[in-house]
């Protein structure tokens, strides 16, 4: 018996050695009949995290959003916002290891839209929708205290500097580009780049590949002086939150009462999200601006189409990042005899016995998706650029100090700088407030 099995093994070895063998299930050896009463052990299959925990995540999300809104709007308490933020960092970051997160959910949503086979989990839908709904009514309270990516950056804000306006405007384009690319890649099934290039997930999991560790650390290091760099200049979800927040019904304000333009809060926002009141002694220049705006509006369609065209020309290079397309290119090279060494991927493909033509057809479909997507992506970027430029020229009369609803993260840092807030908290009497002359106020005194 033993000998026979040995023989079979040797024969099999000789026969199969030169062949590249794939995981075909083959019963080369008969299943034994045991005489000793041996019972085969069970294959243990530990189940994934139970569904109740998904509901728990959703519950925590809703609770945290509601609390964040309550702390920012009703209590106006930076301390409570901060504490909630630390909790969110611990729960969504370190305990849930950063997945699922609202920022990444953008990709699941686009993937679900274009790939009917993908059944998107309800929890992911809610993680995507709920912060947007809250932002549409109350501003970005999600960013203030719920998002783990925001929280880890907020925790390291030490000595924030002012980013010059022109630089901020320039860098502010990146989130739009990132959003566009992420949607394009997710929709075509090329991958989830937001997850792939998430700088902070390595911290939550205590491990990432080397480049991402370097990226993560530099982001945090930069974050000590440029507050929340990812949020302001990269986060693709932030774009959507920004849009919602601009239209929000209620948004936090710096002052709980009225603004007497004392300028005490002027430098209080580490994110540059405070709109300064106009200097009333200077008249507003408008005429020149109107001409420029009109010129930009005329240019807009040209720019949109131009950028769209550029985007569509990137189809070949962008689509290479799709695994099917890169595989097809490798197979093509091999078929043409330009490459002799097979890669793991091409070996695996050839083992499936699928004809190359089928793969090429698939790849060219994907490429044309990238061409169409490239038009949209390019056009979108062109549109954003134009609108941003137009925004630079449109001046609205700003009568008091207020937050910029789009970029304000509702973190509550500026509240305490306002003397009216000091009065509200009972730290200053209304008489003292009246004595404050807004022209020669000593700002430093209140900074402490």
């Amino acid at each position, binding site marked *: *018996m*033993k000998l026979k*099995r*040995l023989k079979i*093994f040797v024969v*099999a*070895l000789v026969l199969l050695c030169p062949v590249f*063998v794939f*995981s*075909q*299930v*083959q*019963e*080369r*050896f*008969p*299943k*034994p009949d045991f*005489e000793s009463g*041996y019972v*085969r*052990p069970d*294959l243990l*299959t*530990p189940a*994934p995290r139970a*569904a109740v925990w998904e509901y728990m995540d959703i519950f925590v999300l809703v609770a945290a959003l509601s609390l964040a809104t309550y702390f920012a709007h009703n209590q106006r308490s930076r301390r409570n916002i901060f504490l909630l933020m630390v909790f969110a960092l611990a729960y969504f970051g370190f305990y849930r290891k950063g*997945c*699922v*997160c609202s920022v*990444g959910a953008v*990709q*699941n949503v686009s993937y*679900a*839209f274009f790939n009917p086979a*993908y*059944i*998107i*989990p*309800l*929890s*992911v*839908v809610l993680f*995507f*929708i709920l912060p947007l*709904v809250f932002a*549409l009514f109350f501003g970005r309270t999600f960013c203030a205290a719920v998002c783990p990516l925001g929280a880890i950056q907020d925790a390291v804000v030490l000595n924030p500097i002012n980013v010059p306006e022109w630089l901020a405007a320039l860098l502010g384009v990146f989130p739009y580009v990132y959003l566009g690319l992420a949607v394009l890649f997710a929709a075509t099934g090329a*991958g989830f780049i937001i*997850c*792939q290039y998430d700088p902070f*997930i390595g911290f939550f*999991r205590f491990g*990432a590949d080397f480049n991402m560790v370097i990226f993560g650390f530099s982001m945090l290091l930069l974050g000590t002086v440029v507050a929340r760099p990812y949020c302001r200049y990269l986060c693709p979800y932030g774009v959507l939150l920004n849009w919602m927040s601009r*239209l929000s*019904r209620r948004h936090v304000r710096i002052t709980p009462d009225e603004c007497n333009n004392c300028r005490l809060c002027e430098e209080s926002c580490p994110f540059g999200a405070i709109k300064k009141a106009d200097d009333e002694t200077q008249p507003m220049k408008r005429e020149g601006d109107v001409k420029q705006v009109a010129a930009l509006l005329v240019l807009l369609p040209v720019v949109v189409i131009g950028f769209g065209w550029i985007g569509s020309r990137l189809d070949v290079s962008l689509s290479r990042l799709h695994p099917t397309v890169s595989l097809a290119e490798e197979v093509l090279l091999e078929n043409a005899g330009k490459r002799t060494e097979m*890669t*793991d*991927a091409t*070996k*695996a493909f050839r083992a499936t016995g699928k004809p190359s033509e089928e793969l090429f057809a698939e790849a060219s479909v994907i490429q044309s998706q990238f061409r169409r997507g490239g038009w949209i992506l390019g056009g979108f970027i062109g549109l954003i650029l134009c609108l941003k430029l137009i925004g630079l020229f449109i001046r609205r009369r700003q009568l008091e100090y207020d937050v910029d609803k789009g970029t304000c993260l509702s973190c509550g840092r500026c509240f305490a700088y306002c003397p009216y807030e000091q009065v509200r908290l009972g730290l200053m009497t209304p008489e003292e407030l009246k004595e404050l002359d807004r022209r020669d106020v000593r700002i430093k005194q209140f900074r402490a």
Partner: protein
Amino acid sequence: MTGKTKTNPVKRRDFVRKSLHVIVGLTVGGLAGILSRKSSAEETVWQLDPNICIQCEKCAVNCVLPHSAVKCVHSYSMCGYCDLCSGYLQPGAKSRDTGAESQLCPSGAIKRTYIEDPYFEYTIDEKLCVGCGKCVKGCNSFGNGSLYLQARHDRCLNCNQCSIARRCPSRAWKRVPASQPYILRGDESGKFREG
């Protein structure tokens, strides 16, 4: 818009903003509606299809966990219980003993137990298994294919985008319903069918 609001830019702006608020609100609501039609309460998890996997060893190093969530599993129902196990022994190993130099597994994670002549049982110690798939390759090439890789869901974090899936050359990874989280072989394969 009426003539009344036209004269007052602040009011007009407010009106535009409020209308936009409603429009965007409806859009988000509509989006949520469409998405909920495409969604299910059930989560998905990542799993690799052992029938596609080519044991490239990427599973061992590309998981976000320091010790990969992918481990070798053993469908005992398919195993030949061979003495000369091609998943356990190096090809051409001199002796059929348990010496480390004759074992295929780099971390010594396979335990060989004598059952009865001539049968041996092979079990995987998951704490030691690194998910390299060397044994799987041996078993698939010359044996019954009862050893194969699976993401173990007591370890897997279920990343939104599995970092192995992204790099798998055979594209063996897919999202599967959480109620059927394994793609098993042999008698074990029916295990999750009932959900």
